[in-house]
């Protein structure tokens, strides 16, 4: 049943990168996605299972060169409770609060949520409006190579990312939001807890004198990957954040998404809910 030939528990990122270079590695962090996927037969394990829990340098949240560095092993509970996140990135702690359940928040990691690349991933949508980048480390020729990639370019499809098989996602880097930046997140599920989002929306921007600038919009569960709503962003940019604009932007959002029918909802319902949630989040951002 299991084709795993080796279990590895690296202590450092360098060791992990070395193991990844050997090829055919499945990375284990919290395991909350990996274990159910394995049991459902939806994941083909590599020959090596690498548990990164003890890897130094993957934990912790800190300010670094004007950005907030969130280590890949940061749990969703950490996002919810950490002072730096609550203070500077409240939209992310709000999304963490709406994430699964206490037990899963205690296990699941930010790095895992990103690498699992679910179109409905609840940290991904706010991270997209925060203009986050991911840090990927590899060891292609005996030396550590680090590259940073905007999160918006990271997702390529459901469960698929731009991470090369020899790379480890070590952190997500979030620029410190500018003064006046406001953001909001909303997800729709049948119940608040433990539901995979039917749709989700995040909006952010600098609101000054009632006008929104640097508008960023992201949607979850309306396509093969979480994505930025560039049409909605253009509709909002530089405009007074009044009722008429909010309604117009919500219509743009509804028209620019291309969801599918699945067991959770029809495409039509998803589009309508994108309209409602975009309106709700924009109204909250305008009133904040």
């Amino acid at each position, binding site marked *: *049943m*299991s084709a*795993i030939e080796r279990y590895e528990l690296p202590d450092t990122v360098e060791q992990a990168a070395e193991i990844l270079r050997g090829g055919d590695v499945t990375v284990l962090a919290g395991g909350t996605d990996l274990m*159910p996927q394995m049991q459902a037969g939806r994941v083909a*394990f590599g020959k090596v299972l690498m548990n990164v*829990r003890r890897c130094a340098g993957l934990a912790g949240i800190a300010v670094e060169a004007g950005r907030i560095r969130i280590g890949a092993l940061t749990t969703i509970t950490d996002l919810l409770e950490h002072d730096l996140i609550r203070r500077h990135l409240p939209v992310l702690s709000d999304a963490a609060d709406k994430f699964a*359940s*206490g037990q899963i928040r205690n296990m699941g990691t930010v790095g895992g949520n990103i690498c699992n690349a679910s179109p409905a991933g609840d940290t991904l949508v706010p991270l997209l409006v925060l203009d986050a980048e991911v840090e990927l480390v590899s060891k292609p020729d005996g030396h550590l190579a680090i590259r940073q990639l905007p999160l918006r370019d990271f997702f390529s499809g459901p469960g698929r990312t731009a991470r090369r098989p020899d790379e480890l996602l070590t952190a997500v880097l979030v620029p410190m939001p500018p003064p006046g930046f406001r953001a909001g997140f909303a997800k729709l599920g049948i119940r*608040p807890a433990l539901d995979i989002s039917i749709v989700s929306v995040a909006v952010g921007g600098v609101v000054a004198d009632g006008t929104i600038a640097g508008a960023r919009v992201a949607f979850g569960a309306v396509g093969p990957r979480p994505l930025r709503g560039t049409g909605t962003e253009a509709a909002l940019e530089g405009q007074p954040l009044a009722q008429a604009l909010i309604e117009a932007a919500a219509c743009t959002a509804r028209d620019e998404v291309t969801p599918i029918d699945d067991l959770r909802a029809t495409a039509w319902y998803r589009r309508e809910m994108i309209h409602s949630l975009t309106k709700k989040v924009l109204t909250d951002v305008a009133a904040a």
Partner: protein
Amino acid sequence: MSLLREIRFTLNGVERRLSVPITMTALAMLRDVLNMTGTKYGCGEGECGACTILVDGQTVNSCIMFAVDCDGREVKTIEGVAADEQWRPLREALVEHGGVQCGFCTPGMVVQASHVLSKNPHADHHAIKRGLEGNLCRCTGYKKIIDAVAAVAGEQEVVP
């Protein structure tokens, strides 16, 4: 046959050392290898909370945790929580308020409630409800369970 790995961890305060298949869940290890059957198998995918245990002081769903990931950590199950006098009032309140019917969710519910109260000893109804959102009960309708935990938190019963 799946690859085996030797792990060492503390289970309810006792040092344990055993070999487990690397794809085994922590729940299967507890129930099928160690015969600790207080922790229940409900949904097997982290949705129902019947398998809740404490690892390094944080509650997790043992059904979606790799057993090998217990290595070097401190694991506490319902057997450990039940033996802890600190949680006697919680157990008694659950009985008194009728928070136990078929009993299948109870071990997970008690472990999670103990964690909620550890983090927030004066949790109100809302905080308790949020804290138990990962635990399903198909008998009580939750009110009796939430009332029981609230009674321990020093809350009066709230009539909705």
